[in-house]
């Protein structure tokens, strides 16, 4: 392929893209002569060049399109159908160009269909006499009947001749003495034109009868603006991308060398070469900036195709969609631009497809009939922020939560506690919403995992803000350039590493001795290091350990002091312990050798000012390793750890309340730890409340002797069950310990389960069951559970909360406890586990109630028919008692009556248990 042709291909492709965008703009604003002239000029250029290169097919098509556009210039009204037709023509042109690029010759084939339609539309009469055009009708508009008789290739030759003479631009056309009547020539055949118009409509795929016209206010970008385009063009040259890349590499190396020279100069007193060095340094900096600039492109280049995409989708889906773009001139690195181009298109398409509701739904919801997608970009520090916002229906978070539970993406309890933003991010899971369940409800997310991956590979992050019925906003933050990033230089072991600043949230100094003085110190849960940071637990990995291939820190090789680099990747937060932190430096990122690229920990390497090579740590890779090893990834978010039942250790939250005594509560019951501003506490009906996550949450002191603070901060331990939450007021949160729980039942105090020795300190284990009714009188009416006693007891309750609460109580009373969450599960356990001696069941459960369970047991016969059952209920009424008696339920106990339950159990106990044993 000769150079001329190659250049033509590149240029034409660009022109066609511009025409695409401009046409959509023009459709909105048909009186804008500027845009029209611009489009006209571009198509004309393509046509002219085709004739010159001997490409008859392209030329004939371009000519026909130009003729129609010529009529627009004459004041012919611009209709959706005609624009669609021209867009279809442009697509054909692109297809031919693609073939041409592949094979080097114009493909054979006929374009008569399009040309015919174009010609017919060109010759159609304007419905109303157009206002006298300012510019005389274009010379290029030949009387269509003449053209129709000729073959495509020939027709335009003499016309082309003229066109070339008239070059360079449309402005010249206006001066040309015009064969004025030409445009109106076909007026004699109005009847014939009608079917032609219909045909044109057909061509526009499934164009709605009244094509919805997306109003795309494309920002001024590209060579599009004004007739001066021709002059501006002469001042740019095309440079091969490789050349620029090479230049960039050379400059990077120059920068490094300069840095080394400066380092040397600093060590020497001899100043004879300081001045020239200074100058070199200066010039280098300028050169670097200049080369960086050549790599920068306005983000509008990536947006160019979007108006067309939205217009087509809008027509296809029958929705009115407006695309508003701002900040198209924001510049970013070419390399980055390439990576985000496709994800952006995908996201806009997604917003149009799934985000914006159908027109009638919008009207029903009282919104403007046309949906709006807002695309904006702006600089922010060293990053660029791109927002894609729609005013559509928003994500259905409830459905996403449900789906996430179904797909087992995280433990249900954890998902329940997640914030909306965290839940929304599930749509980025591979294949998450391709399944029908979510698609039918909320729809988002096909291929969103790919979008996220693409963005993350360049060190970017995506965030979602969504409001049901109001719309969704995606925010993408990406670094300006990949070539030079700001990095924190740290030391771990004997080596230095660079950590990209974009992933670093903060630095925390930790010290082994700090523990006693209340400063930051690393603590351990079963050897796993964690850091308490503003009442959240942060899992810690040591960089040195990671580098030795172990993601967890082993006991003994404890580095207890240094700095924790708090990093966030996606929704995972973790701390990386390093020995020393030096400074921040702008580093030139060099790719890893192909032999080392498989190591997930490194994103690349660089040469520092002193000439040393250091490795750049990849926060994404570290996050993956952290997530794999242990469950620290999950702990990062929820700081709630599973308390294992059975004989395993229990994790307890230790706090101080009243008279300096230590108290503890199983961590699994705790939803969050909060430090609130005491002035935010409100009193309603004599009870303290705070506004918490959009709801009112009652506060209950852990000890009656704790006065609520009226100023400063107040520590709270938040418990929640379903929608309800309660804040337990404590003096101070002390620690989280994991120990084998050996509870000694306390004296007659309902607020305590008992006491245990934790970390060598006598600690009261509080009975949350005592506090819940203080916050909500009706808490008991929700879920319930059952316990089995002595050797073996089965506890049936649909609420995990109550199961967790009662299990320690029953264990403390000497029972081996297994638990079931439903009647069905309980039956299954009973049938498979012959060692169970007694059942404690909640009566009010969703689905099969406790009575149903007992009924089924009695029917099952044998052992189950005889098995003693203690029922738990929120309300004890005569009917319930009657029914309980008929089912031979040993006792009915009110839900929070701990001692009542234990008494009932011990009453049945003796004979039943004896026989079991």
């Amino acid at each position: 392929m000769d150079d001329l042709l190659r250049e033509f291909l590149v240029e034409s492709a660009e022109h066609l893209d511009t025409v695409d965008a401009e046409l959509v703009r023009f459709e909105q604003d048909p009186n804008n002569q500027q845009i029209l002239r611009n489009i006209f000029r571009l198509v004309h250029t393509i046509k002219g060049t085709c004739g010159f290169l001997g490409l008859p097919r392209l030329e004939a098509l371009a000519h026909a399109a130009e003729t129609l556009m010529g009529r627009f210039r004459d004041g012919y009204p611009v209709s959706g159908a005609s624009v669609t037709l021209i867009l279809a023509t442009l697509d054909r042109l692109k297809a031919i160009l693609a073939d041409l690029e592949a094979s080097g010759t114009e493909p054979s084939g006929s374009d008569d269909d399009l040309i015919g339609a174009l010609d017919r539309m060109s010759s159609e009469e304007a419905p109303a006499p157009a206002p006298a055009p300012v510019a005389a009708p274009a010379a290029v508009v030949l009387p269509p009947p003449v053209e129709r008789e000729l073959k495509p290739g020939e027709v335009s030759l003499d016309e082309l001749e003229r066109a070339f003479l008239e070059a360079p631009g449309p402005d010249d056309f206006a001066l040309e003495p015009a064969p004025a009547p030409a445009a109106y020539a076909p007026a004699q055949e109005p009847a014939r034109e009608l079917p032609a118009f219909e045909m044109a409509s057909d061509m526009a795929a499934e164009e709605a009868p009244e094509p919805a016209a997306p109003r795309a206010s494309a920002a001024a970008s590209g060579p599009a603006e004004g007739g001066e385009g021709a002059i501006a063009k002469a001042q740019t040259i095309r440079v091969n991308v490789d050349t620029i890349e090479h230049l960039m590499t050379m400059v990077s190396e120059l920068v490094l060398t300069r840095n080394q020279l400066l380092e040397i100069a600093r060590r020497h007193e001899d100043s004879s070469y300081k001045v020239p060095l200074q100058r070199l340094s200066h010039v280098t900096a300028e050169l670097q900036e200049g080369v960086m600039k050549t790599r920068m492109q306005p983000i509008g280049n990536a947006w160019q195709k979007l108006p067309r995409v939205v217009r087509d989708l809008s027509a296809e889906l029958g929705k009115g969609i407006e695309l508003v773009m701002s900040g198209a001139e924001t510049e970013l690195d070419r390399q980055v631009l390439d990576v985000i181009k496709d994800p952006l298109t995908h996201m806009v398409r997604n917003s149009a497809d799934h985000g914006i509701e159908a027109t009638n739904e919008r009207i029903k919801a009282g919104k403007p009939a046309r949906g709006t997608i807002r695309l904006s970009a702006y600089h922010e520090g060293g990053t660029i922020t791109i927002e894609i916002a729609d005013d559509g229906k928003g994500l259905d978070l409830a459905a996403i939560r449900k789906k996430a539970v179904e797909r087992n993406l995280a433990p249900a309890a954890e998902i329940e506690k997640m914030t909306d933003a965290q839940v929304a991010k599930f749509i980025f899971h591979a294949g998450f919403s391709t399944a029908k369940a979510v698609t039918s409800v909320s729809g988002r997310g096909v291929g969103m995992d790919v979008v996220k991956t693409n963005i993350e590979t360049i060190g970017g992050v995506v965030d979602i803000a969504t409001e049901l019925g109001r719309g969704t906003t995606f925010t993408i933050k990406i670094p300006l350039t990949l070539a030079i990033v700001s990095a924190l230089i740290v030391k771990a072991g004997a080596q230095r590493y660079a950590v990209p600043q974009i992933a670093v949230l903060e630095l925390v100094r930790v010290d082994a001795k700090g523990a006693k003085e209340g400063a930051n110190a690393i603590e351990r849960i079963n050897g796993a290091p964690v850091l308490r940071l503003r009442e959240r637990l942060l899992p810690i990995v040591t960089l040195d350990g990671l580098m030795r291939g172990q993601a967890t820190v082993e006991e003994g090789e404890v580095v207890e002091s240094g700095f924790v680099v708090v990093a966030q990747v996606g929704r995972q937060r973790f701390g990386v312990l390093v020995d020393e932190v030096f400074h921040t430096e702008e580093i030139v990122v060099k790719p890893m050798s192909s032999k080392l690229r498989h190591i997930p920990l490194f994103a690349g390497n660089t040469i520092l000012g002193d000439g040393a090579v250091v490795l750049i740590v990849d926060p994404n890779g570290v996050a993956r390793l952290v997530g794999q090893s242990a469950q620290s990834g999950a702990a990062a978010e929820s700081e709630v750890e599973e308390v294992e039942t059975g004989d395993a250790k229990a994790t307890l939250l230790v706090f101080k309340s009243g008279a300096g005594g230590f108290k503890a509560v199983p961590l699994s019951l705790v939803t969050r730890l909060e430090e609130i501003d005491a002035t935010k506490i409100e009193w309603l009906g004599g009870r303290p409340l705070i506004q918490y996550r959009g709801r009112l949450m009652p506060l209950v002191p852990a000890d009656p002797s704790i006065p609520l603070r009226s100023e400063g901060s107040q520590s709270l331990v938040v418990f929640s069950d379903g929608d309800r939450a309660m804040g337990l007021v404590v003096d101070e949160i002390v620690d989280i310990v994991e120990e084998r729980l050996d509870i000694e039942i306390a004296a007659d105090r309902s607020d305590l389960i008992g006491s245990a020795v934790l970390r060598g300190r006598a600690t009261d284990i509080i009975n949350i069951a005592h506090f819940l009714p203080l916050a909500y009188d009706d808490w008991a009416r929700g879920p319930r559970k059952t316990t089995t006693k002595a050797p073996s007891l089965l506890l049936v309750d649909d609420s995990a909360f109550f199961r967790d609460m009662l299990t320690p109580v029953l264990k403390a009373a000497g029972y081996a406890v297994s638990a079931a969450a439903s009647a069905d599960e309980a039956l299954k356990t009973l049938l498979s586990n012959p060692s169970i001696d007694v059942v404690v069941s909640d009566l009010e459960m969703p689905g099969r109630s406790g009575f149903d369970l007992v009924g089924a047991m009695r029917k099952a016969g044998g052992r189950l028919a005889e098995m003693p059952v203690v029922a738990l209920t929120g309300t004890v009424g005569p009917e319930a008692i009657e029914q309980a008696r008929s089912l031979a339920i040993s006792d009915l106990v009110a839900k929070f009556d701990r001692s009542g339950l234990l008494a009932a159990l011990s009453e049945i106990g003796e004979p039943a248990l004896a026989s079991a044993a």
Partner: protein
Amino acid sequence: MQAANANIAPADTTDYVTVFVGETMFGLTIDRVHDVFVPAGITPVPLAPKEIVGLLNLRGRVVTALCLRRRLSLPDREAGAAQMAIGLEQTGETFALIVDGVGEVLKLGAETHEPVPINLDPRWRDISLGVHRLDGRLLVILDVDALLAFGEAGRDAKVA
């Protein structure tokens, strides 16, 4: 002495850069050798394949340093022992082959060339192109591409 050979049959000769590892002499075709330098300031890369000793800065380029001893499964040289590096290039990347020493450049013809003895350790055999019989010693010719083709097999094990 070898120069005489070259004069007789110039068309058939190849130039080899000779390097030493322990007592063994190896040859590398000269057109693959870009540099000979003293390696300094090597940054070790954690979790890397064992053959790779680290990264180093060669005139502003980051170069992957690979140890011929480890590649041949020989014991590491003693700490502080002299070492030299040969700059090799493969598909646009530069590698530094760390050896004990670098000798002269030899011009050798086909008449001294022998195939790789079949009883050679397979690890050696895989990266050798042949052996030249020289006066009093043997020269093992290294296949640069085979030399640099490592890590693929060990990759999975590394990740795990």
